[in-house]
């Protein structure tokens, strides 16, 4: 009996006083107004474009682009389509962002740890580095670095040559020799993947064995050996081709080899030094967030300094480091659009030229937003996944 009377008596209320109905009602009103606003904006834009007789739609993507791009990872010529030109831009953005993220992480971690060093000079140098680079706008660093490269290095005809005339430094970029294309190269790539998989398996086996028997195994060194060794073995089995395409001055510029252009170098260096200053502070905050007892406890268990760092301190510091790090990675990707100032052909550059040639600003802005959103969300998803992996797991 008591159970049946437990709930409060159901009072009859008017529908406008019922919190459930009221909640639904306001939700619907909000959704409705947002949808109405969106509809109004879209239809208004389309109507205005029609009235001004500005063409709309994505049909232009299939047309011939007609402009040249100075730096491309895939074959591209002015006879290709706008879609391909935009794709070239996306690849260039990804290239500078990915390399920038890796380098900024490494450099930033070194600087961040260096700032905590007991060595006074090293700590001060790292501190100055952080303050100098993060307190000046990135755009100014880009201009400065680009200007330095174009003024410090000579033209192609007076190029600085290194290593018996195989590497050349000019204000048009750095020229390196590369091996001529050979069938064995794709097999070396397969070998590299096999090596990485093998190293991972060895690492797992070593951990399992250590957990079971307490016997350590130098899995890092063996793993590195496998990663390098397998591709080298494939190369030797493929007849060890050693023909190199060496850059040589021909006409106006060096031909052959590969070139890293100054626009790319300037953008990469600018992004890395600027972002690494922030990364350094994040790493420092992560390490300082740990209680001193953690390292003392680790040492008292007989772990070496390196083991204590790798097994006890870093996993805990990462929990503090990873979330703000995600923001820095996103910043690198988005800041790479400053490329436009020094002429690196990134996504923004391709899109801007396309807007100008076709006049279809809205469609192109949608593409550029979609592209940056996809890249940023991918980085976010990955970092959130990684964050969950290293988070405290309560069982």
């Amino acid at each position, binding site marked *: 009996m008591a159970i049946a009377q437990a709930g409060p008596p159901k009072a009859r209320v008017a529908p406008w006083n019922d919190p459930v109905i009221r909640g639904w009602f306001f939700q619907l009103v909000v959704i409705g107004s947002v949808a*109405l606003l969106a509809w109004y904006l879209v239809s208004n834009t389309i*109507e205005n*474009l029609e*009235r*001004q*007789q*500005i*063409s709309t739609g994505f049909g232009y993507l299939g047309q011939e682009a*007609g*402009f*040249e*791009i*100075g730096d491309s990872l895939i074959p591209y*010529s*002015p*006879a290709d389509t706008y879609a391909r030109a935009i794709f070239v831009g996306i690849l260039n953005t990804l290239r500078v962002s990915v390399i920038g993220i890796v380098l900024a992480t490494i450099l930033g971690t070194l600087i961040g740890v260096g700032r905590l060093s007991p060595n006074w000079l090293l700590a001060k140098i790292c501190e100055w580095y952080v303050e100098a680079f993060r307190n000046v706008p990135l755009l100014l660093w880009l*201009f400065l670095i680009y*200007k330095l490269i*174009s*003024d410090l290095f000579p*033209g192609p005809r007076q190029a600085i040559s290194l290593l018996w005339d195989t590497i050349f430094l000019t*204000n*048009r970029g750095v020229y390196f020799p590369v091996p001529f294309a050979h069938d064995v190269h794709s097999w070396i790539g397969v070998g590299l993947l096999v090596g990485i998989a093998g190293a991972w398996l060895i690492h797992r086996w070593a951990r399992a064995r250590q957990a079971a028997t307490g016997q350590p195994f130098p899995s890092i060194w063996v793993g590195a050996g496998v990663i390098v060794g397998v591709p080298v073995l494939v190369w030797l089995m493929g007849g060890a081709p050693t023909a190199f395409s060496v850059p040589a001055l*021909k*006409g*106006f*510029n060096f*031909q052959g080899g590969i070139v890293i252009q*100054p*626009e790319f170098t300037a953008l990469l260096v600018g992004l890395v030094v600027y972002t690494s200053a922030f990364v350094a502070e994040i790493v420092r905050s992560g390490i300082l967030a740990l209680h001193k007892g953690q390292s003392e406890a680790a040492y008292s268990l007989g772990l070496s300094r390196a083991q204590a760092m790798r097994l006890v301190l870093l996993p805990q510091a990462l929990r503090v480091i990873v979330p703000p790090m995600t923001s820095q990675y996103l910043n690198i990707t988005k800041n790479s659009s400053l490329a*436009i*100032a*020094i*002429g690196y*052909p990134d996504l923004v*550059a391709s899109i*801007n*030229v396309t*807007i*100008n*040639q*076709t*006049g279809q*600003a809205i469609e192109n802005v949608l593409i550029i937003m979609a592209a940056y959103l996809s890249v940023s969300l991918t980085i976010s998803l990955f970092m959130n996944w990684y964050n969950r992996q290293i988070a405290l797991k309560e069982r």
Partner: protein
Amino acid sequence: MVKRTMAAAAAALTLTGFAGAAQAGPDFDAIKSRGHVICGVTTGLAGFALADSQGKWKGLDVDLCRATAAAVFGDAEKVKYVPTTAQQRFTALQSKEVDLLVRTTTWTLQRDTALGFDFAAVNYYDGQGFMVPKKLGVKSAKELDGATVCVQPGTTTELNLADYFRANKMNFKPVVIEKVEELRQAFFSGRCDVYTTDASGLYATRAANAPKPDDYIILPEIISKEPLGPVVRHGDNQWGDIVRWSHYAMVEAEEYGITSKNVDEMLKSDNPVIKRILGVTPGMGKALGLDEKWAYNIVKQVGNYGESFERNLGMETPLKIERGQNALWTKGGQQYAMPIR
């Protein structure tokens, strides 16, 4: 219900739109009530539009902006200049940030149609050329295979360049920087072998920006037609007419020998053409929806086309550009004004 209200509102808007168009165009009305013309110009190109040390804009393009202001307001100073880069310019015009664009813009089919613009006239006939450092020893554009070329993005220049090298089966590496100041810097520091833009721009850049102008030569090839002119939006033909005839008034004035110096004497002229131009015989101004003194004000305050050319680009200026194609049709050039009658 909502739909019906919207439809009614749209209908009302359309109606007022038509009613407005019957009196004067929406752009022209906006300009008159605002009290000045907003003119999109380059961010700085000697001879065409460049702010001097006092911040006063000068150049051939600027003179056309001033001419429209003189025609509409009787005062050539009632202009606000908006510097635009090659890439911003069309969006600025489409979004009504500027009333007209006089920005060394090439008249092409695509721009005249798909972008929703009208080209009102051609105030400078140009063509694309190449500038190289003398020490390269290049004598012709045909020798440029493999060269690195500095070029501004979003221009017809960029497309002509690619077309020219493709047509001649040559390769090139572009260095593409939007801000023209940075681009020139890249060329003069040796990042590129070649700088390409319209020939007038090459002369202007060499005269005004080169560390030593004599170290650079402009190659003889002109690889394209670049008719540069003022641009307006679709949707207000009256304003387009005013821009077009402001330019023609300057050209016509030169043809009939009316200058800023003698325009007051010319008011007494017996020549019926001059009387019509200067509004002594009324009718022209009314047809345009302007004061009858519109052309008089242009010539008096801005000068005729020849005066403007000589003042900004001619042999007395550092640019030293000859009239060439831009001479009057009576002197073997292509500047030809439609008759004012």
